[in-house]
């Protein structure tokens, strides 16, 4: 019990990036493992920190700062993954001059593990994606876009599993409906499938067939809308096996991640990290290796259950 309290404090320290590497090193080889998932969305080519303008965010963001923050977290916990939920392209002159290539090259250097595709990735058509893709050393995971009949056939996995310290993290990716949002000629023969239907196929596939301990959805659907339009909140409520929905598109600034009840009555985390790299989401999943039965002890900002 004491030890668990210690972990909590250790994590709180990492949140403020003020503590040294002690907590995780002390725990090495113990019966606890933490998987840290860090994430951004809607970077929109904001390579540099934001320039002036709106007072309190001036100087915030920047890939170099994100990189430093991620490095420090990784130094404390090597079991850290870094994801992006799309709209990497378009938004600063860097895009107009150097297109997506520079951004993907830099994100690779920062150490991104995966991303999903946002609608602005199509701004220069399928050609624009094809021309810059070689610079990405991480995959774009697209579960509900089918590029089979386009020049991007076989370029994107539908899902990917990461293994960290024996824990399997299954990731699927959901894109927004392109029709009406992206010019027809820019997405060509890309086929869009219903995101919820896709999610309901992906989550049991990852959880049961591939025995993933964690199921993560990278989504560019948007956090929530008035009406029934599919969104991260709808997705969270209608799925049963997804542990974390990392969102984008709506540039939603959340004071803290949302904890929602899923269809099975279990808790699911929904988060979005504003936009332009101003915020870095960080979700830590603490696993315990034990012969004891499932524990349930949910408190604020902590969820329990979800036995693997």
């Amino acid at each position, binding site marked *: 019990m004491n030890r668990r309290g210690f972990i909590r404090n250790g994590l709180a320290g990492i949140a403020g990036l003020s503590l040294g590497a002690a907590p995780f090193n002390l725990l090495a080889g113990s019966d606890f493992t933490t998987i840290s998932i860090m994430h951004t969305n809607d970077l929109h080519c904001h390579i540099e920190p934001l320039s002036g303008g709106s007072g309190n965010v001036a100087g915030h963001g920047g890939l170099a700062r994100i990189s430093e923050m991620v490095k420090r977290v990784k130094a404390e916990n090597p079991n850290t993954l870094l994801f992006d939920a799309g709209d990497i392209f378009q938004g600063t002159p860097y895009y107009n001059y150097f297109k997506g290539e520079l951004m993907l090259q830099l994100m690779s250097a920062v150490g991104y593990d995966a991303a999903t595709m946002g609608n602005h990735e199509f701004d220069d058509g399928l050609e624009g994606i094809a021309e810059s893709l070689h610079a990405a050393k991480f995959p774009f995971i697209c579960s509900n876009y089918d590029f089979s009949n386009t020049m991007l056939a076989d370029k994107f996995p539908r899902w990917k599993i990461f293994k960290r310290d024996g824990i399997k993290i299954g990731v699927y990716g959901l894109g927004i409906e392109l029709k009406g949002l992206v010019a027809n000629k820019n997405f060509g023969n890309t086929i869009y499938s219903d995101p919820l239907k896709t999610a309901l196929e992906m989550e049991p596939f990852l959880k049961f067939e591939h025995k993933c301990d*964690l199921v993560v959805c990278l989504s560019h659907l948007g956090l929530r809308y008035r009406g029934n339009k599919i969104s991260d909140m709808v997705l969270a409520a209608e799925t049963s096996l997804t542990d974390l929905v990392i969102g984008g598109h709506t540039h939603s600034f959340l004071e803290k991640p949302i904890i929602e009840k899923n269809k099975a009555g279990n808790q699911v985390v929904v988060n979005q990290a504003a936009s332009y*790299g101003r915020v870095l989401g960080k979700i830590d*999943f603490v696993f315990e290796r034990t012969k004891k039965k499932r524990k349930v002890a949910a408190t604020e900002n*902590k969820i329990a259950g979800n036995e693997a």
Partner: protein
Amino acid sequence: MNGHFSKLLLITWAILAFSCKPNLILTEVKTNNLTVAENSSLLDSQIVFQYLPFKNILEKDMKRVISFSEKEMVKGRPESGLTNLLADLVLEEGQKEAVRLNLQIEPVVSFFNYGGIRTWLPKGEITVGKIFELMPFENEMVFIQLTGTQLQQFYDIVASKGGDSVGGVRFVISNGKAKNIMIEGEMLDSASIYWMVTNDYSASGGDDLAVFTQRLKLITSGKKIRDIIISNFEGRKIRGVNLTETLDGRITNE
């Protein structure tokens, strides 16, 4: 012999592995949204060095001052200084361009889609770089001819969104619909035909404006919206005119 031995080894391993394997239980989830700011972290110099050569190329072009704004202008609904400025600018430049191209048309209204305005204008110096941030897209100015009925449908969409960046028009939002629509001082006539200045993204139905795809005619200008903004701002600077905020109540809530 060998085969038997490895099978045995495998079974032994399996027994050992599975009998000892404890349950893996998710016991706790800790969630945080970290602000990416100066006080939370330094810059990773490796990344800075990687983009520095590109930054230098950009900066030469981007830091040129093209205008001066008397106020910070942020987009807002139903109207705002920024949305009004851009819609008026596009209408003015569209009218000039129609004459220059000898199109024999008279655009009377304009639309600069709200979602396409990607940042705000700060008070003080406005640089080329700021216009790239404001209008990063390579969208082109186009003219579309709409029936009065189509225009009414369009303003109803604007009203349902609570307002947008429109020029040459005044109306009242009433129960999510556009009421008392006035164009050039006259009530919108559903039997009339109107020319609008907008961009190719909206004209192709972007952001749920399918009504624009039913237009009667479309004329492209070949001019990028961003270039038009830059040259308009530079023109003001030459004339010694600063950017000012115009809030004229073109869209009001009932």
